[in-house]
């Protein structure tokens, strides 16, 4: 492990912490434009985080230590995820800590803790949100795994850094399987990040919300951490999608020049991605919760198709 890689790694984590609320703010802004509302300032998520960190925590009487512990676990999981996913460079000393499958596990761990914490207080909304989250999660996870298997088959490795490295520096080949996997991945990301076809991040209407229902009881710095973790999750998913399906511009070695070139490219890609996300959220209606399995089933189907097409078309026996 060289010192350069370590610096790059720490820089990537710091960048994730800094950029994640910005990305959320940008998506909110774009969505407001699409919906013909006056947009909140770009920095609004930072102001909210700042405000929440200054506030006192109000805990319910029945809260167990798990409830106080969960935001830190979730936040930690998301930071780990952001550390593994290549954002600027594929030379990541932390990358051997977890491969793609473990990355899915990290997201799963965060989900379990936030759902348990939601059920911990014993309010009806909390357990409702927790159960719905688990419903969405257990359907999204196999689809995500299938997407990962497709990319892993192409690159002969399950390490995120190696996969991105291979995909970024290959000759130009059209992979129909990657296209399938890309569509499936975007479905899964919409569901996992509580975005519109499955959940509405802006709603406080009790009957429709999933993520918001789970974090109703949180306040103060706990809420700040949970919100920040949600931003980080969106950022990690966006970066993973960009790294897998449009990896051009990611630096392979650790060099100041490479990182400096990769940063604006990443920002531009994230800006376009956030804009598209806001567009998707604005033109789609939220699905009934019982239609969510069908939505995620489609994602699973596409991912499996990608895998099969990969096996049939792109291997020469």
């Amino acid at each position, binding site marked *: 492990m060289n010192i350069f890689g370590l610096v790059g790694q720490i820089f990537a984590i710091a960048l994730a912490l800094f950029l994640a609320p910005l990305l959320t703010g940008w998506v909110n802004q774009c969505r407001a434009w699409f919906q013909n509302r006056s947009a909140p300032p770009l920095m609004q998520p930072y102001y909210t985080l700042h405000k929440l960190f200054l506030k006192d925590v109000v805990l319910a009487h029945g809260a167990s230590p798990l409830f106080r512990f969960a935001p830190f676990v979730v936040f930690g999981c998301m930071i780990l995820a952001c550390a593994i996913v290549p954002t600027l460079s594929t030379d990541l000393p932390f990358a051997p800590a977890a491969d793609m499958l473990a990355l899915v596990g990290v997201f799963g761990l965060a989900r379990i803790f936030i759902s348990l914490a939601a059920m911990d207080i014993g309010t009806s909304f909390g357990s409702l949100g927790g159960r719905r989250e688990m419903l969405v999660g257990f359907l999204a996870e196999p689809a995500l795994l299938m997407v990962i298997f497709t990319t892993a088959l*192409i690159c002969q490795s399950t390490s995120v850094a190696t996969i991105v490295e291979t995909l970024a520096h290959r*000759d130009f*080949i*059209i*992979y*129909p*399987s990657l*296209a*399938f996997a890309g569509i499936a991945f975007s479905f899964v990301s919409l569901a996992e990040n509580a975005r519109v076809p499955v959940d509405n991040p802006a709603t406080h209407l009790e009957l429709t919300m999933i993520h918001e229902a789970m974090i109703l009881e949180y306040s103060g710095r706990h809420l700040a951490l949970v919100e920040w973790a949600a931003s980080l999750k969106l950022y990690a998913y966006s970066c993973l999608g960009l790294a897998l399906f449009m990896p051009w511009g990611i630096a392979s070695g650790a060099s100041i020049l490479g990182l400096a070139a990769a940063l604006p490219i990443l920002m531009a890609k994230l800006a376009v991605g956030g804009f598209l996300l806001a567009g998707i959220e604005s033109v789609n209606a939220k699905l009934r919760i019982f239609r969510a*399995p*069908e939505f995620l*089933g*489609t994602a699973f*189907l*596409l991912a*499996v*198709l990608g895998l*099969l*097409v990969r*096996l*049939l*078309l*792109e*291997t*020469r*026996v």
Partner: protein
Amino acid sequence: MTASIPLSAQLINLFASVILLLAFAMLAQRRMLPLINLFAYQGLALCMSTLVVAVTTGQHHLYWSAGLTLLLKALLLPWILHRLVRKLHVRFDVESLINIPTTMLVGIVLVMVSFNVALPISQLSSTVSRGTLGIALATVMLAFLMMITRTKAIPQVVGFLAMENGLFLAATSATYGMPMVVELGIALDVLVGAIILGVFFFQIRDQFDSLDIRHMEKLKDG
């Protein structure tokens, strides 16, 4: 490995995958008009893939069949179907015997089976596009599935036409197309078939006041 596949074969594979994707989309579609549009897109993708095969291999009759595909399957037949739907006032939702997620799962199994069946056959073939044989077979099977699971007459006809798409893809991918006479014959058959089925729709509706073919099980003798 993959690097040895020429660009044309990659393009053919891409279009074949799009055709497969559209076959699944048709299977999942609940509404009549988008279903017909999806069928039109499938015809377009089929035309493109035939065109790529034609350019790669320099077989002139494939240009004709590509043009014929575009004219018939991407323009004329969808137009006829659109007109039928408008005249029959059947814009309602498509009903399916099995619910749609289950249908999709059955579809995946069908795709696996047809890929496995096609693999040894495609190794005998020496064309650039032999890999797509499995996809063509899968498209035929999915169209069959659609015909079996739908209760309304129009989706069944769309399934029938989509099956023809799959056969056509199989013909181009395995053997660079059938002889021109056969192709023309099939194309005209499908066209005539669609028109006759259109007349049938009117008859069915006049008889039963509905296009649900389940009513036809209750035929009485005299």
